């Protein structure tokens, strides 16, 4: 393609090195643990060692005598101090009758999961706080423990005794159950499959932490928190503590990853604010890994039952899904809604005339669940993509062919197509995605090699797994969220201003925790305004600098926040055009804007760069009549539709049938996230996402025993894979611009996770297929694989 228009270096589409990296790799970046306030007190949490127990007494005497201890406060004492006007918030009451037992930062009477806070120590150092917390003696009266989703469903023992049931809600998207049943009755082929989405621990590189700094005489309070959601947090601190919202400032410093674990409103945050405000002293806390495992929310936790009906050619006629979702012990910010984020995607990329989905939410005496990378959508993608492989076996055709026969729009390009679940998919083109992935991986050659190994009876068998996924991101149109009873809007705010010296400041409502917003936003400005991205600085993550925002989760930053920035830049350009026209003594309609410069059509000698106009707008000595000084514009963008990225992933595994070991030896990801601003950042997101999904398939599982005790709370036992366990991820892309926003962007933060668990498990099951093994629970550990082989009659 010949492009005669000279573009600024580093604009949209450029592989610009990340602006953020220098301070990260040199250690200059300041994380929560690098920030200190004089006189600060450390909190040490005394956490319940029992999954469900009534607290009969707490002896704090020995702990209080530890040197450096300021005070030791029990839940009952804290309740009397009136630090909070409301329990921790749940912002997504998915039904009118949803049960939502109160979740106080420190429980005053009954502990509902291991890790529930029962008392807090304040001390002058982290060490003294830990020592003293160890010395608090709590007596418990054990209560019946609901230690699994299966047990919750039996509803014999109750996770909250006073509720009388474990069922929190039933939510359905089932417009025509009779029609669906009729489709099953008439089906030539059916599939009925049960899948388990095991609980996962998000494990970001930086654990969570807080520091609350009061200004007792200034009447305000600053809360530093390793959070993805400073703006949401500010509202919730006000609502929970009763402090006037305008006196609260939230700062999220450098944040080392989140994956959803940092989008919650946590007990420690409300404790720090409440105690700092009460004492007039700074209060801080940093979680340990074991605390993170026991108390920061976990992901997934579902039992899935998916049924497919198809005609004799394998063409889907109905998809019916029943989910049981593990809420854990309490409803946190979006606990109940997280499984429902997948509800619209259980038919995947496929065309089906009938669709029904029902979800029951259940309380257990386990750590609460909430959003974890993909949040509901990896679960949906897993269920439909595993089930499609089972349908292919049932019909007797290949996994590629079953997909081709069922793609929406027959695999051809489409725009604004209504799905069976009632959403309008912005754009898609699934056929080329599959073609490209199969070509890159060398699908036919792999099948030949697989056949050779099978014939030779080799120990290491090959498995090939496909997954074509679609996800919903760009959360979200505020009206749509309102219809789902979500307690917030889905807009994003941006300000763009040209400073007097011509440099550009962008204020982002969307807050990064590793994604590279500073780079990406600069690239959008570079292309829009024709400037060097180095001239752009992005302000974010501090409610005093950026008072309006809806923050970062659900792959929404670019498709909502990035679009807001582009729109604010357009408003600045438009105002600057009027100023340039005034200087040119021309009509604004005659002023053209190209590569950052305004000029009058036909008079190229007269030209002014947009950055030069900053000073004139600042001095305001000679502005057009009625024009306000300065070039600073803001936009709040509320999208009209979600965005629906998609792609096809192929996993190739080697299964050692003697040991059960599964090695992921190849991984090809062909993703389509619409227009790409920085392909390098996109690839990085795909790499990380793929590994996180493959980790669910092969490694990670928060394993609880029958007493509700987590058996693997440390990174010694909770197996987060490292670079050594994964192959080079082979990435490629198709580009189908979104119709939901003017940039044509979709979002890519969760895509890898949404495609990879299904692709890897399809590959594992494909390898074991000759033994009659067609399904296996995640994670496919060597022990589990070996047991399946033995049960299928495979000797040693």
């Amino acid at each position, binding site marked *: 393609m010949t492009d005669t228009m000279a573009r600024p270096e580093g604009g949209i589409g450029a592989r610009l090195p990340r602006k953020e990296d220098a301070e990260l790799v040199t250690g200059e970046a300041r994380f929560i643990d690098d920030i200190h306030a004089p006189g600060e007190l450390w909190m040490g949490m005394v956490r319940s060692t029992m999954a469900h127990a009534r607290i009969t007494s707490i002896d704090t005497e020995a702990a209080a005598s530890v040197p450096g201890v300021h005070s030791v406060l029990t839940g009952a004492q804290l309740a009397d101090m009136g630090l909070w006007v409301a329990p921790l918030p749940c912002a997504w009451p998915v039904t009118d009758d949803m049960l939502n037992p109160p979740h106080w930062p420190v429980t005053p009477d009954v502990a509902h999961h291991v890790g529930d806070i029962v008392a807090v120590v304040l001390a002058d150092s982290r060490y003294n706080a830990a020592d003293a917390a160890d010395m608090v003696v709590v007596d418990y009266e054990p209560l019946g423990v609901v230690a699994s989703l299966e047990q919750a469903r039996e509803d014999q023992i109750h996770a909250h005794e006073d509720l009388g049931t474990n069922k929190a809600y039933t939510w359905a998207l089932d417009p025509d159950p009779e029609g669906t049943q009729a489709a099953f009755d008439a089906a030539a082929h059916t599939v009925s499959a049960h899948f388990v989405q095991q609980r996962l621990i998000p494990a970001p590189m930086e654990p969570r932490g807080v520091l609350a700094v009061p200004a007792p005489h200034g009447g305000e309070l600053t809360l530093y928190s390793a959070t993805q959601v400073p703006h949401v947090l500010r509202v919730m601190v006000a609502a929970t503590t009763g402090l006037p919202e305008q006196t609260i400032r939230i700062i999220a410093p450098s944040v080392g990853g989140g994956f959803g674990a940092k989008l919650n409103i946590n007990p420690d945050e409300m404790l720090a604010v409440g105690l700092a405000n009460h004492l007039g002293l700074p209060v801080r806390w940093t979680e340990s890994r074991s605390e993170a495992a026991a108390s920061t929310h976990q992901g997934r936790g579902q039992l899935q039952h998916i049924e497919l009906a198809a005609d004799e050619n394998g063409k889907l006629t109905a998809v019916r899904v029943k989910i049981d979702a593990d809420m854990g012990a309490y409803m946190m910010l979006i606990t109940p809604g997280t499984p429902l984020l997948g509800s619209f995607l259980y038919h995947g990329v496929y065309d089906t005339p009938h669709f029904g989905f029902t979800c029951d939410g259940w309380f257990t005496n386990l750590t609460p669940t909430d959003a974890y990378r993909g949040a509901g959508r990896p679960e949906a993608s897993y269920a439909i993509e595993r089930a499609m492989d089972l349908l292919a076996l049932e019909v007797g055709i290949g996994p590629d062919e079953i997909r081709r026969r069922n793609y929406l729009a027959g695999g051809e390009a489409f725009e604004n197509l209504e799905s069976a679940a009632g959403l309008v998919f912005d754009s898609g083109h699934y056929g080329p995605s599959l073609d490209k992935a199969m070509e890159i991986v060398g699908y036919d050659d792999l099948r030949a090699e697989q056949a050779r190994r099978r014939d030779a009876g080799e120990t290491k068998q090959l498995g090939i797994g496909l997954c074509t996924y679609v996800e919903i991101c760009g959360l979200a149109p505020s009206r749509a969220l309102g219809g789902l009873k979500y307690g917030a809007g889905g807009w994003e705010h941006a300000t763009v201003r040209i400073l007097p010296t011509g440099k550009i400041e962008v204020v982002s409502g969307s807050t990064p925790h590793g994604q590279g917003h500073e780079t990406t936003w600069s690239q959008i400005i570079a292309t829009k305004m024709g400037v060097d991205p180095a001239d752009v600085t992005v302000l974010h993550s501090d409610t005093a600098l950026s008072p309006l925002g809806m923050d970062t989760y659900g792959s929404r930053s670019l498709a909502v926040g990035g679009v807001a920035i582009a729109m604010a830049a357009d408003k600045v350009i438009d105002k600057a055009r009027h100023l340039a026209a005034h200087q040119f003594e021309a009509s604004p309609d005659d002023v053209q804007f190209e590569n950052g410069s305004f000029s009058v059509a036909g008079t190229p000698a007269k030209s002014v760069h947009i950055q030069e106009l900053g000073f004139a707008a600042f001095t305001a000595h000679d502005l057009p009549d009625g024009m306000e000084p300065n070039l600073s514009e803001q936009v709040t963008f509320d999208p009209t539709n979600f965005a629906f990225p998609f792609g096809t992933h192929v996993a190739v595994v080697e299964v050692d049938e003697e*040991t059960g070991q599964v090695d992921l030896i190849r991984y090809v990801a062909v993703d389509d996230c619409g227009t790409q601003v920085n392909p390098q950042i996109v690839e990085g997101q795909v790499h990380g996402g793929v590994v996180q999904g493959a980790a669910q398939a092969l490694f990670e599982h928060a394993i609880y025993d029958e007493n509700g005790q987590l058996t693997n709370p440390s990174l010694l036992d909770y197996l987060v894979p490292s670079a050594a366990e994964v192959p080079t991820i082979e990435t490629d892309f198709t580009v189908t611009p979104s119709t939901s926003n003017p940039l044509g962007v979709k979002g890519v933060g969760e895509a890898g996770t949404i495609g990879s668990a299904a692709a890897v498990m399809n590959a594992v099951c494909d390898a074991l297929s000759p033994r009659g093994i067609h399904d296996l629970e995640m994670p496919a550990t*060597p022990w589990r694989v070996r047991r399946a082989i033995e049960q299928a009659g495979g000797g040693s």
Partner: protein
Amino acid sequence: MIPAAFDYIRADSAEAALAALTDHGDDAKLLAGGHSLIPLLKLRLAAPGVIIDVGGLDDGLRGISVDGGQVRIGALTRHSELEHSDVLRESCPLLAHTASLVGDPAVRHRGTIGGSLAHADPASDLPAAVLALGGTLVARRKGGEREIAAADFFTGFLESALGPDEMLTEIRVPVSTGGWAHEKFNRRAQDWAIVGVAVAEGGRGVALVNMGSTPVRAAAVEQAIADGASPADAAASAADGTSPPTDNNGDGPYRQHLARVLTRRALEQATS
């Protein structure tokens, strides 16, 4: 993640370390590379009153040499030094290879062979290799020194024959260039073995990792090999008499199955 309080003594000589050990006895722990001890401290699974740091010492406790038919390794020699030592690769390639299997590069640059052996973790790689090689461990205490056969050294889970006033100073293994192999089965590169097997001298020495409360010699396998059995036949008895642990990675029968498979594979390598 926060250790309990302890007193810290940085020993400036082996003698000073031994004197401190004599003074504090059971309440003291030696710190070398720290990669076994510090995690225990941070999880509060160990809470010694005194830590005696020998990690900075040389004092004849570091280095690899060959003396007659013996390879002598200072207890403070780091895994990375074993892994990359030309002397060791020539005189006892099994031990050099085993060292390369320990943890990850960061661990291998801190951890020491003496620390690993004295920690006596049955899931560690080096104890089984030293056992398969029929090594000897030198223990020194204030005013004396003794030699302990590797076969007598590991007495229980995280327990060794070292007295509270003794420090492991040297590891001696015979020069061993016959067929060797070390098969380590784990999930992630940095993890302990779920099961492992070290084979020396074509199967005359075979020892298992994580198949009981101590590293164990697979005596029946060694005997079968000595009697001329094939690797497959010899390996069939690899799990005889073992009582391996059950954890999230596997139960006893699975570990026994792995021991047989890995032993066969290791013997095949060692005899090919």
